[in-house]
């Protein structure tokens, strides 16, 4: 009905003139509103007005159809296609923002009530209930936080130096046509696509063969994360080191500075902000991994374990996964709360890491004067 109104207001398209008819500037907004109202009427007619998502989806489709027809009547086929595609990519973009907002909102909504200091810092997972004389589970993620920090920390300690040094070799030492350089660059690219669960299986197989069958421990999980983290780190540092102008290196060489000192004091020093950013993003990428840690470090619901060499170790992501999929039969509410709480905590950590990375990049970015 809206679209009919708009059409009636349009002057008839002048045929065969240099300037073909154009739709008014804000037509997109009006058509979109009209489409949403029409979609709402349709859903109200079926009695499903509460199904907001379907309502929006139908509105988007109606909007696209309406704007396409309208434009092809007034503006001609070519401009109509142009307008249609533009509307299409805008809808596509909105479509991607919805899941982002929706995931964050869902986790905050479900997890915010759980997130208390008691939940985060209490190391005890069980409690003796005085009224029923039973030992009951208490929601708390302190063991998982410790496990996350230990496993990710070990992985970062191994991966960051290796990744950095490999990047230095690729950019500073290897000749562009060096066969090993080509192979390593290629393998790093391919390694970024290794499924994370395969990395977990690798660590499990490694420890099964070296230590003994069925070994679950934190170090094993850290090794799995290294497989995922090293290529990210190499890629990020390579990009950053390439940005250092050649003149700086040449100036250092001209002063008689040896190559390794040039690299450490000039090249790495100049790109330090980018390197820190890369490391942060690499950590943020692996800290939320679930599958490899579950495979390599196992899972324990109650035990507190801060020893990466012995015994199963939990992380926030694994706690969230196991507690939701396989809740404790006697106290499902406690385990579910734990799942949401640890998911929210994980998101907060990842967002903080990303923000630090952004801030470091913005604060210490080399000020190019060009």
């Amino acid at each position, binding site marked *: 009905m809206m679209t009919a109104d708009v059409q009636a207001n349009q002057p008839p398209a002048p045929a065969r003139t240099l300037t073909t008819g154009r739709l008014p500037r804000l037509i997109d907004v009006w058509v979109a509103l009209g489409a949403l109202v029409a979609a709402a009427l349709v859903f109200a007619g079926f009695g499903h007005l509460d199904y907001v998502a379907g309502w929006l989806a139908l509105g988007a489709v109606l909007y696209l159809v309406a704007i396409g027809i309208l434009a092809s009547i007034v503006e001609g086929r070519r401009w109509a296609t142009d307008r249609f595609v533009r509307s299409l*990519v805008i809808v596509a973009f909105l479509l991607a923002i919805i899941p982002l907002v929706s995931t964050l909102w869902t986790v905050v909504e479900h997890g915010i009530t759980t997130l208390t200091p008691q939940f985060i810092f209490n190391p005890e997972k069980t409690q003796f209930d005085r009224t029923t004389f039973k030992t009951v589970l208490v929601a708390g993620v302190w063991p998982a936080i410790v496990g996350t920090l230990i496993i990710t920390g070990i992985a970062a300690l191994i991966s960051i130096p290796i990744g950095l040094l490999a990047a230095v070799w690729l950019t500073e030492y290897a000749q562009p046509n060096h066969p090993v350089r080509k192979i390593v660059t290629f393998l790093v690219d391919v390694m970024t696509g290794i499924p994370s669960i*395969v990395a977990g299986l690798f660590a499990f197989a490694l420890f099964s063969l070296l230590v003994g069958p069925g070994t679950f421990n934190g170090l094993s999980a850290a090794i799995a994360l290294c497989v995922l983290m090293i290529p990210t780190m190499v890629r990020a540092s390579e990009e950053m080191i390439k940005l250092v102008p050649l003149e*700086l290196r040449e100036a250092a060489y001209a002063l008689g500075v040896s190559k390794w000192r040039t690299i450490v004091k000039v090249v790495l*020093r100049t790109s330090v902000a980018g390197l820190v950013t890369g490391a942060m993003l690499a950590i943020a990428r692996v800290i939320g991994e679930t599958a490899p840690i579950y495979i390599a470090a196992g899972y324990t619901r109650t035990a507190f374990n801060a020893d990466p060499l012995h015994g199963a170790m939990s992380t926030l*992501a694994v706690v969230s996964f196991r507690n939701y999929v396989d809740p404790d039969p006697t106290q499902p509410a406690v385990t579910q709360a734990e799942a949401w709480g640890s998911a929210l905590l994980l998101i907060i950590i990842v967002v903080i890491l990303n923000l630090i990375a952004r801030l470091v990049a913005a604060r210490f970015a080399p000020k190019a004067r060009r």
Partner: protein
Amino acid sequence: MTATPAAAANGGGPRNTGAPTGLAAMKVSKVGDRVFLGLSSGAAWLIMVVLAGVAIFLLIQAAPAIGANWQQNAALQDRTSGFTLGFANFWDYVSPLLFGTIWASFLALLLGAPVAIGIALFISHYAPRRVSGILGYLVDLLAAVPSVVFGLWGIVVIRPFLGPLNEFLNSYFGWIPLFSGDVAKGGSTLLAGAVVLAVMILPIITSISREIFLQTPSLHEEAALALGATRWEMIRLAVFPYARSGIISSVLLGLGRALGETMAIAMIVSPKLIFSVQLLTNDNPATIAANIANKFGGANQTQADALIATGLLLFVVSFAVNLVARWIVGRTSTGPRRRRIPTRKAA
């Protein structure tokens, strides 16, 4: 920390003249050079060793399970954790899983890739310059969300969201095999898993194709616009031909990600070892990664080896996909671009 690069380089000069000169200093720096070269080239070699190690250790652990006759093997026919019960051999067990993996990833690509390329186009050619950086960052943020969070989100949001759609598709389009069968009441359908998987592969496809779109020579774009092309015609004539291989490889990299993604499928979809293309039922083909995540905790030693063998197969498949993708990228991004200009006959 606050010194600018130029100051750091200049500051090295005067200090260096004060340093001890002569043979001793040269020797020290020679040793330092050699140690540093050794360390950094060692790190590069280590990467190759790690990748080879992944393949070798998986192979060693998986070999017995691949070669074994499963029906004769007591551990594999164990009834307490009987997920390997009744299979003749490894291939019998893994083929429905492989089908499920490829089918789910294909669905995710079908849903995700067009949207992802649309977003990339929006950010590179439609959004105002000032905000396009922020919009790109928003999409990248989607990549930072941990997969377990997507799993939870899929359970509480996507499942109920798709519920009415499932009913609608089933009752009106049930004659299409895809939408036939009994609709899953809880919503643990493959469609729900594929939708979440599609969201998870959006960022990788978007970020790579965005990069390529932005690299289109602006002369090509301006030439098209100067000839009176609309923006879409300009994109079709200048941007797409330039970016074609980049788009293909970004989609392949998205496929590689989808193949190995575990949590979205493991948490959302109710799995079975079957060949089925029905999207809306409770009986969905399991994927390799999700199957490992679901079964590994309760597996005995031999069963764990069998799961590792399926993981090895997943590794091989995703390695091959990534290899092809990177090969396409590498072929086009290095060296001068050869553009096919139609040869004109001399007048």
